[in-house]
């Protein structure tokens, strides 16, 4: 009996009139938990009853506490007939089970009915007394904290990041169980709501168990989804990242670990980044500093030991062969083949194209349960190919057996895990070392009934396949981990597309425990040796790999852009140049990732939302034929989306995408693809070239005219965009210095015909950055379409910025004005539209939606729409549904300008200092460059398998770019500790999240008096101008609303408007009842809307989640924390004295 749940029903208000005769209600309440039910007395004839009940006590297992919600039903007593239900409240007990979260639930909660919506409110008090249960075999996982936030929560510190946790549970969907098709809406909806509550609870408990098993105490980036598979059942699945978190207790803690205490510190890093290179440069050889870094770190802290082993990774990474995709390369494959499905080589797209690449009859015969299984052998094949390539490539240039050993060791830590995946998108400093490209996998499945809900093996197996594939893609990119990982599904009838995507990356093992500790110890000394050799300057024979080993010292905000691989071994034509920041290491021309922009990254100008939208019609079909058709279409869809993204990126003069999210939605007659990302100009990457339009038949003069007009339009747009986003990289500097790069690339080229591009592939000169072109050939109808798509994207109105990441680079001084919103649109299409027509409609739909948002929020200007999250669905034939949830943040324009100036002034200086040091390496690098480009090995790699290998990775993994991200953190931490006080304080002001450090920790005391009347909601993990002082637990709610009087409720729009408002209200009320005043990382994960206008009916399901928190405004904090702060200074002084 390890738990006692206590509930007290205090009062009700605003109840509906249940008795027409008296215009009053005789209300009473049933309180149910598990199988136990209590009732209050009837409070007669009142719309505002005061029950003031006794404490109802439930003695239950903690397992049940986790699984079950507390159900409160308000009823109207009726002497003669059955009592009428007014509505229900489900209360998730979970936040009360964790000592660090909420202690009591108390407040007015809306009484909800699935037919009538909110019907008054009820005031309840809920408490839990937990007894410690030390049973090792327990099934509960009380106390494991869950966070939707995809970064380390603000008032915690990550001690350990254990890794990926996943679980899924399945059940029959009550909606489909009604005998003889007699469906009573209320009973059916309530059964469903309750079931999903139960399943979420169970899922969370199971995940919690896994976390405990791993030794963690929290799940970060918890993502739970529902698959409403219709007749085949209901699947609730979740993924997350298990961590061991430590609450940042009090002042001394932050004072001693300034670098890893909270993400807000990340903001400071650019400054350190700027300073860091300066120091070693002036002193010539960078080594002394490095040595210091090590000596000061490794003995003191356990994690520092691990971090030193991360250095070993650094030196290893270059060895790992990244299979890299040039965005232009794939073009050849697709454009050339008239019958793509036939042409796609087997090793292409092991997952996505499995349907097309596999001889269908063979498979069908194998899959007896009508479920399409696909052969894993393809991915293995790819793997083999990749690894073979890797070893072959690296053999030639291997710097020595030591590194091979190191590589094995560090990678083993991650390889021991089943899935080295992380749902985080923002990382504790020092965790993320190298960013690879985007990896994704999709699989088309046919749903069948889940026969045994207790053994959800098929669904598990499906996801396992996908994850395996993601893992292998990451591997083939030379990365041992996948970050920013997420999974999703799209279901239409019996066809289901499973998708997973993430960013291949190399992580520091500093936060990971799996690696054998003594090995790390042993290894940690070896890197030191490497460094000492380095101190005598990197010699020519050490080559790039050696110099890469030192990158951590040099790289400021550019480190993560440097390529992690040896350019000799690039099996495809990538455009490599020297890093525009440090000039020492090569960087790719474009970088795509699914994570948030690392805060230390140096960015020129501002970012913007970039979307690729695509519609493809398909024939109506059934079963396997349908699945086959879909999987045949998928690669084209992804390719087109990719091309669009690339074009739009170039049009905006930017060179990197963050937060990339590609959603593919399936309907009966079409497929919908929507890719959203935030484009930025990474200072370290080369300036993107323009877009050149070429006509194929140059004879016609008017045609030429047309083309040149278009060209002019495009050029103008690019110029305009550069101005708009303040992209003005300091190109002058490079001229002065005399960069080692022969010629900065001016344009890139999109190849649109097979013959042309294949020629180009063989002659591509990797390192010379030869004047390549991003050519759109106009005779190609697709190209015309592309150009139209490009030019129809209207710019954001003045004063607006938009992004789908957490923060917008270049904007810092947010005001406290925030406005979260959800907007949903459903569009009805005409029948018989062409692909082009569809595309245009879909694109316009998204554009208009954005325009509407800007208009709505015009009073907040200047403002930025952050975390713009688009979800598309095809609820019915000929219907497209787009839902957007985002937050608008106002910022202060004046200060922005000042900041802009400041950074503008700083950049050139920085560049110069960097370049100073740069020169020292020029010779070696040049030599190496030439050798690598000439190297017959490299050439043959590229030349011999261009059609087979290069595109294969691109398609199968959709991995666009790889780049290395070298750890700088210890150095930075060091700088902080050494006390660059000036920098720190100034940055604190400028940071977008000016979260005070030591003083802000005094949270709890100062909070007590605050009002909870207003509850803020935001999809971001923070609240500008405020400090989150406590996480109260996860909010995960599922509601169904149905109506049979659609017209009377204002039609579909009125119905949904009310429902969304109700959902917001319920979220706010539950947060307030937990004692919170905000929800962060809020998201609407599901919004399924169905209507039947003929019957005047509609139904909608909404699933939302987020983290309930208490925040305190910075200004309040300052007032309230005067006293504690003095205490802080004392303690910290004392600490320093010792």
């Amino acid at each position, binding site marked *: 009996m390890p738990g006692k749940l206590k509930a007290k029903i205090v009062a009700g208000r605003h109840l509906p009139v249940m008795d027409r005769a008296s215009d009053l209600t005789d209300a009473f309440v049933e309180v149910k938990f598990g199988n136990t039910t209590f009732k209050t007395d009837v409070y007669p004839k009142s719309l505002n009853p005061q029950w003031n009940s006794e404490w109802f006590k439930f003695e239950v297992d903690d397992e049940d506490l986790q699984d079950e919600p507390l159900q409160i039903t308000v009823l109207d007593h009726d002497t003669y007939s059955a009592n009428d239900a007014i509505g229900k409240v489900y209360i998730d007990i979970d936040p009360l089970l964790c000592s660090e979260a909420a202690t009591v639930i108390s407040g007015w909660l809306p009484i909800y009915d699935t037919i009538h919506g909110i019907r008054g409110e009820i005031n309840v008090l809920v408490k839990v007394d937990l007894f410690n249960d030390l049973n090792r075999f327990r099934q509960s996982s009380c106390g494991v904290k869950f966070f939707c936030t995809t970064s380390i929560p603000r008032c915690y510190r990550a001690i350990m990041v254990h890794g990926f946790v996943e679980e899924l549970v399945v059940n029959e969907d009550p909606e489909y169980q009604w005998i003889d098709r007699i469906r009573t809406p209320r009973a059916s909806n309530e059964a469903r709501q309750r079931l999903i509550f139960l399943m979420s609870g169970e899922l969370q408990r199971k995940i919690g168990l896994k976390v405990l098993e791993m030794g963690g105490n929290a799940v970060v980036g918890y993502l739970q989804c529902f698959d409403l598979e219709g007749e085949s059942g209901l699947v609730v699945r979740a993924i997350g990242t298990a961590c061991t978190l430590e609450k940042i207790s009090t002042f001394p803690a932050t004072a001693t670990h300034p670098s890893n205490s909270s993400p807000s510190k990340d903001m400071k890093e650019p400054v350190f980044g700027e300073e860091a290179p300066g120091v070693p440069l002036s002193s010539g050889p960078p080594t002394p500093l490095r040595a210091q870094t090590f000596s000061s770190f490794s003995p003191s802290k356990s994690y520092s030991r691990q971090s030193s082993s991360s250095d070993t990774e650094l030196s290893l990474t270059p060895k790992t062969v990244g299979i890299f995709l040039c965005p232009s390369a794939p073009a050849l494959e697709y454009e050339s083949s008239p019958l793509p499905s036939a042409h796609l080589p087997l090793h292409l797209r092991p997952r996505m194209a499995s349907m097309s690449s596999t001889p269908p009859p063979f498979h069908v015969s194998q899959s007896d349960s009508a479920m399409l299984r696909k052969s894993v052998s393809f991915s293995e094949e790819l793997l083999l190919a990749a690894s073979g390539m890797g070893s072959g490539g690296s053999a030639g240039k291997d710097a020595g057996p030591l590194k091979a050993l190191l590589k094995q060791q560090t990678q083993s830590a991650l390889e021991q895990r089943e899935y080295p995946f992380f749902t985080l998108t923002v990382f504790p400093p020092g965790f993320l070392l190298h960013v690879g490209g985007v990896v994704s996998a999709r699989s088309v499945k046919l749903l069948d009934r889940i026969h045994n809900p207790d053994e959800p093996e098929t669904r598990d197996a499906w996801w396992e396949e996908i994850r395996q594939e993601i893992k292998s893609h990451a591997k083939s990119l030379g990365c041992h981990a996948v970050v920013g990982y997420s999974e999703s599904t799209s279901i239409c009838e019996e066809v289901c597309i499973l998708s997973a995507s993430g960013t291949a990356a190399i992580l520091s093992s500093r936060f990971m425990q799996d690696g054998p500790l003594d090995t790390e110890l042993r290894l940690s000394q070896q890197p030191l040796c490497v460094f000492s050799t380095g101190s005598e300057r990197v010699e020519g024979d050490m080559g790039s790999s050696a110099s890469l080993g030192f990158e951590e010292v040099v790289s400021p905000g550019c480190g993560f852009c440097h390529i992690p691989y040896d350019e000799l071994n690039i099996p495809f034509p990538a455009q490599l140049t020297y890093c525009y920041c440090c000039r020492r290491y090569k960087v790719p021309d474009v970088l795509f990732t699914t994570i948030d922009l690392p805060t230390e990254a140096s960015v020129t100008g501002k970012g913007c939302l970039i979307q690729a939208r695509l519609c493809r019609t398909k024939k109506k079909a059934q079963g396997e034929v349908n699945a086959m058709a879909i999987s045949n279409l998928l690669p084209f869809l992804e390719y087109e989306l990719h091309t669009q993204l690339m074009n739009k990126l170039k049009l905006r003069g930017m060179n990197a995408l963050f937060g990339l999210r590609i959603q593919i939605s399936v309907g009966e007659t079409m497929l919908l693809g929507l890719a959203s990302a935030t484009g930025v100009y990474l200072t370290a990457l080369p300036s993107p070239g323009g877009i050149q339009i070429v006509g194929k038949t140059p004879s016609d003069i008017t045609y030429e005219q047309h083309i040149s007009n278009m060209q002019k339009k495009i050029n103008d747009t690019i110029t305009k965009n550069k101005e708009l986003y303040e992209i003005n990289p300091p190109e002058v500097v490079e001229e002065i210095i005399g960069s080692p790069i022969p010629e900065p690339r001016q344009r890139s080229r999109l190849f649109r015909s097979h013959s042309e591009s294949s020629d180009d592939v063989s002659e591509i000169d990797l390192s010379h950055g030869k004047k390549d072109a991003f050519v759109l050939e106009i005779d190609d109808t697709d190209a015309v379409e592309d150009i139209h798509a490009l030019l129809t994207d209207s710019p954001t109105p003045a004063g607006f910025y938009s992004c789908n990441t957490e923060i917008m680079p270049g904007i810092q001084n947010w005001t406290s004005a925030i406005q979260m919103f*959800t907007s949903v649109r459903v569009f009805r299409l005409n029948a018989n539209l062409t692909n082009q027509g569809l595309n245009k409609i879909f694109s316009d739909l998204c554009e208009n939606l954005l325009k509407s948002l*800007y208009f709505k929020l015009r009073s907040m200007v200047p403002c930025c729409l952050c975390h713009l999250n688009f979800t598309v669905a095809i609820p019915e034939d000929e219907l497209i549904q787009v839902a957007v949830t985002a937050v608008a943040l106002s910022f202060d324009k004046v200060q922005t300008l000042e900041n802009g100036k400041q950074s503008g002034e700083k950049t050139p200086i920085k560049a110069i200092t960097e370049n100073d040091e740069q020169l020292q390496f020029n010779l070696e690098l040049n030599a190496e460059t030439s050798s690598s480009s000439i190297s017959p090995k490299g050439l043959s790699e590229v030349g011999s398998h261009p059609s087979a290998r290069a595109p294969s990775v691109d398609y199968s993994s959709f991995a666009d770019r790889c780049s290395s991200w070298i750890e700088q953190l210890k150095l930075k931490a060091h700088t902080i500790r050494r006390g660059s006080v000036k920098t720190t304080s100034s940055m604190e002001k400028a940071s977008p999240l000016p979260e005070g450090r030591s003083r802000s920790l005094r949270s709890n005391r100062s909070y007590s008096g605050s009002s909870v009347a207003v509850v803020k909601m935001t999809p971001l993990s923070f609240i500008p101008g405020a400090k989150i002082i406590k996480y109260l637990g996860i909010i995960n709610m599922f509601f169904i609303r149905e109506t049979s009087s659609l017209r009377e409720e204002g039609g579909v729009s009125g119905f*949904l408007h009310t429902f969304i*408002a109700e959902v917001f209200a319920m979220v706010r009320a539950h947060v307030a009842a937990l004692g919170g005043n905000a929800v962060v990382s809020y998201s609407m994960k599901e919004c399924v809307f169905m209507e039947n206008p003929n019957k005047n009916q509609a139904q909608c399901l909404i699933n939302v989640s987020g983290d309930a928190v208490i925040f305190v405004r910075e200004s309040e904090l300052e007032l309230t924390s005067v006293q504690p702060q003095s205490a802080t200074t004392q303690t910290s002084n004392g600490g320093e004295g010792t």
Partner: protein
Amino acid sequence: MSVELDVFVGNTTIMDKEVYQLWLNGYTVNDAVKVRIEGGVMEECEASAEVLLSDTMDQYRTFQMCERLLHHPAKLANQLLFQIPPDRQAMLIERYYAFDDLFVREVLGKKLSKGTKKDLDDVSTKTGITLKSCRRQFDNFKRVFKVVEELKGPLVENIRQHFLLPDQLARDYAAIVFFANNRFETGKKKLQYLTFQDFAFCAGQLINNWTLGAVDNMMEDMDVDLDKEFLQDLKDLKILITDKDLLDQHKSLVCTALRGKTNVYNEMEANFKNLSRGLVNIAAKLINAKDVRDFFIDLVEKFIEPCRSDKWTSIDMNLYLTHYTNSAHILDTFKHHAVWTRYMGVIKSCILRLYHD
């Protein structure tokens, strides 16, 4: 191809004041969009007509959803469905309960019944105010009336507390309720020159001086009804005109006081008895509910019109009424000083207010 569903829901409910006003004015969505386009909001914000339409529809929907709450403004503050900042709430309420003077003149003093509501389309055509807006205003009157009717205590304060209205608006509503309750006739042609504010002023005077609450606000009864006892006592004033001596005495006192101070002395002297009879008769008849209704007509017919035809100025009027009231107290046989003061105080300020073109 058409937008089938289009909603926008903010955590803080976004409401545009301009659109709110258009909605209150009873414009259709399309008309509202036209007005907004003419207002130039499109150029300001780089929007298209489509965007404007979507926004307007969305706002209209929000207002419709809020309307239910606005009927009980106190609920707006503790409802959970919409998160609206307090200043916004106040704005919503104030504007919702605001009314057109033109409209209120049409229904002032009428019974707030279904019958009256049915005639609102005539009112709408007459005033040029949309029927929708007329209905809202009428329903507001009725709602306030119904709530306040049953309440004890000061009328204005009750309205202010129950409907969270600003002071001036609460006073106006008090006037409307008071007029509706006593069914004062305001629609006659002779009264057309009077504005709502004229009547509201008079209502304020009546409420403050002639109701039960005026004497003792601890009284069980309310502000809405006139003090019956007082009305009864008014009959005693008749002596001022029935007693010939008193009347003559009164006249001579007033004439002495006014001689040389006014340009209309002669007309005043000639008309004194008529005017005095008029005022005292009004007082004496107020005990009958029917005559209460005609209070304003009587005032205008019996007093204001004769004076106006004699071209009295407001100053003359003020002078006359002051001396007329004060002289009565000097009369030896006149005993009803308290009632006289209570009566004439109100009459004087009402007449002064109503005496204009």
